[in-house]
């Protein structure tokens, strides 16, 4: 393996600025990941031709793929930079910001819309209060495991990036938010307000936008069972629709 790591990074000084490409050549070390490359550039900000530049701007916190912050497009695929190991990425590495969200600077994008979508589906358990009211409801371990598989979603946006239906025309809230609706509706307490969430996902930009392309589930780093969740939600909304119609 070559002892140089080559990176091409798409840079953009601000939301309105024109994007440009910069190349970097770094000395290869054992166990590098994309984060340690970007850190090396911070410590010595010169490009591949030896010209001084500014450090590349990117987001990261946990560096162990639980916070979702460092998501970017690496060699054409949306994923986390912290788990992108250099030795597995081939001869040259291309870094770009996520394409479905507005760029703030360089590799940083604004994913606020995902948090806003969680408001739309009333993404919380409506507890009476945080004072001590004794134990919660019992739950079979099997149901708990399904809930857990959904609640590991770290709002990273990989599934949004992969989904063809997430685009300016559809207004689609996207697979992650739909799966969260399923999560809250699966909880013994959340179930009591399930119809509110069903109504929300039946509205504009909701579940009907999903074309069942299945790209999302393949893109999810946390193996959230997105398509299983969406299929279940489809059945629930259909049933809810019929029930509404019958009791009209």
């Amino acid at each position: 393996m070559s002892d140089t790591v080559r990176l091409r990074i798409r840079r953009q000084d601000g939301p309105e600025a024109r994007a440009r490409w910069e190349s970097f050549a770094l000395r290869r070390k054992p166990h590098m990941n994309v984060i340690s490359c970007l850190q090396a550039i911070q410590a010595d900000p010169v490009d591949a031709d030896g010209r001084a530049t500014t450090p590349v701007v990117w987001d990261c916190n946990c560096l162990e793929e639980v916070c979702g912050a460092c998501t970017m497009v690496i060699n054409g695929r949306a994923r986390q930079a912290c788990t992108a190991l250099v030795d597995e990425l081939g001869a040259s590495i291309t870094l770009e910001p996520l394409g479905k969200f507005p760029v703030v600077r360089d590799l940083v994008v604004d994913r606020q819309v995902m948090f806003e979508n969680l408001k739309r589906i009333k993404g919380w358990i409506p507890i009476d209060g945080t004072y001590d009211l004794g134990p919660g409801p019992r739950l079979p371990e099997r149901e708990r495991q399904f809930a857990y598989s959904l609640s590991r979603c770290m709002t990273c946006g990989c599934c949004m990036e992969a989904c063809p239906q997430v685009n300016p025309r559809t207004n689609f809230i996207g697979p992650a938010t739909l799966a969260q609706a399923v999560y809250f509706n699966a909880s013994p307490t959340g179930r009591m307000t399930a119809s509110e969430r069903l109504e929300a996902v039946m509205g504009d930009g909701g579940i009907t936008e999903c074309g069942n392309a299945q790209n999302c589930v393949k893109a999810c780093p946390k193996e959230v069972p997105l398509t299983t969740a969406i299929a279940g939600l489809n059945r629930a909304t259909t049933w809810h629709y019929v029930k509404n119609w019958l009791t009209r």
Partner: protein
Amino acid sequence: MDRKNIVIVGGGLAGQMAAVRAAEQHFHVDLVSLVPIKRSHSVCAQGGINAAVNTKGEGDSPWEHFDDTIYGGDFLANQTPVKRMCESAPGIIYLFDRMGVPFNRTAEGLLDFRRFGGTKHHRTAYAGATTGQQLLYALDEQVRRYEVAGQITKHEGWEFLSVVRDGGGACRGVVAANHVDGAIRAFRAGAVILATGGPGLIFGRSTNSVINTGAAAAAVYLQGGVYANGEFIQVHPTAIPGEDKLRLMSESARGEGGRVWVPRDGKPWYFLEEMYPAYGNLVPRDIATRAIFEVCVNQGLGVDGKNQVYLDLTHIPADELEVKLGGILEIYRKFTGEDPARVPMKVFPAVHYSMGGLWVDFDQMTSIPGLFAAGECEYQYHGGNRLGANSLLSCIHGGQVAARAAMDHVDGVPAAPGPDPYDAEVRRQEAVFEEIRSMDGDENPYRLHRELGEVMTDNVTVVRHNDRLDETLERIAEFKERWRHIGPPDRDGTLNQSLYFTRQLHHMLELAHVIALGARLRDESRGAHYKPAFPSRDDDRFLKTTLATHTPDGPRIDYEDVDIQYLPPRPRVYDVYRKEDRP
């Protein structure tokens, strides 16, 4: 609007818990956070959260939990607040259960509990191996609910710079900077709660998130807040070494039966089990870390001749491992390419947690009236060494206490004396950035940070010697001087991370000074603080909280007595079960 307004800085477990508590009591909360609160460092917590609910018929109780915590902390923690925390723990677990946290269950559908270090009881509730993430998300959802209701306003992407003090010295709000556009403004409040997490980055690479610089607590220290027990830094025995970060391998791996060993004379040597027959692999962290150091560094028995030991799970059925530890095994697999269900993991100690932090009273108020602190940024609950799974508990409990106290404070606070202090503080902070922008030396802030991290890790972690601490203090003075010769690699523009990092580095150097000086002056061994030249605990001289106060010549160190009203100090030994050496 300022009277019923509380500013909370930080949206980890402590900050979010406080925010929800205050919003629920009809206060308005401005929640200021560097990162989107859902991405706070608390998501990293893997293993679990402690509460003595005794569902396994082991005779556990909050009192036992209290005893384990005080003993595990080598008697340095004030006992009144720790006792309250342990008593509130079962209620906290039930609350999070009601909020929907998918805690693992027993066959009966009840909460399951596992074992952690420093106790003989199954006392740790867990949600797979991503407990912190699950707890944080549950709060994040409640915060969102109050956001929709207009009770909480989030300000994400804002960095806290300083507190605003009125003519009488009381805290009346904060000044913060927006990272994207560089705007600096004041947030007014009747009370402020700081919940900004730990300072792991001072040691360069650690198990912490990279935002954990401790800069916010340092800013308060520079403004007159007292910083307590800074020298007590927990080094976790088991982490995966990495270029960018030392990733934690949770204690839950040992809680579920993982065994630590090195090859010796061609056979596995389970040295923890041999040295500490009563607790075995589940001795507290300071003890395990020193044993690993002894075996690797002093006896040269590290695996493959390197500083690393095996942490072995291969004897446990793979499907059981997946359900209980999936999240952390995935981390190991993703970063090393090896499967812990088939080959033993290779691990080594890494800086993990700060027991020290801002001094607070039993109601979480700092030495600055009206400024409260909760979570890892304060010092109150863990003494000389924190037990595993007690931090998430202390964050949540501390957040609850702080919210209550802050609301009471707001209700009783008179109008601010003297002129409006906000503009002056905003201008002072603007001037700081002007100064940093105008520096034009040839030091790079990121390289300087690396050097600081290396010096601190080499000299102020597992084993401490006074001559090396003296050298460290000299190096810190040199770093402070060199800081003034930084040329920020990026002077203006949107989201100028290096500008903010340069300021944070300044604050890290100040806290590094507090930590190293505290260690230098404490001539004893207690909990995580170990000096071979003073190998035993010295209660006569040092059963005392270290208090650091900022002066222009560096930290002034004083000492304060510890509240020991419930449990008289006794020797701390883990090779026999502690009941037997109780009087």
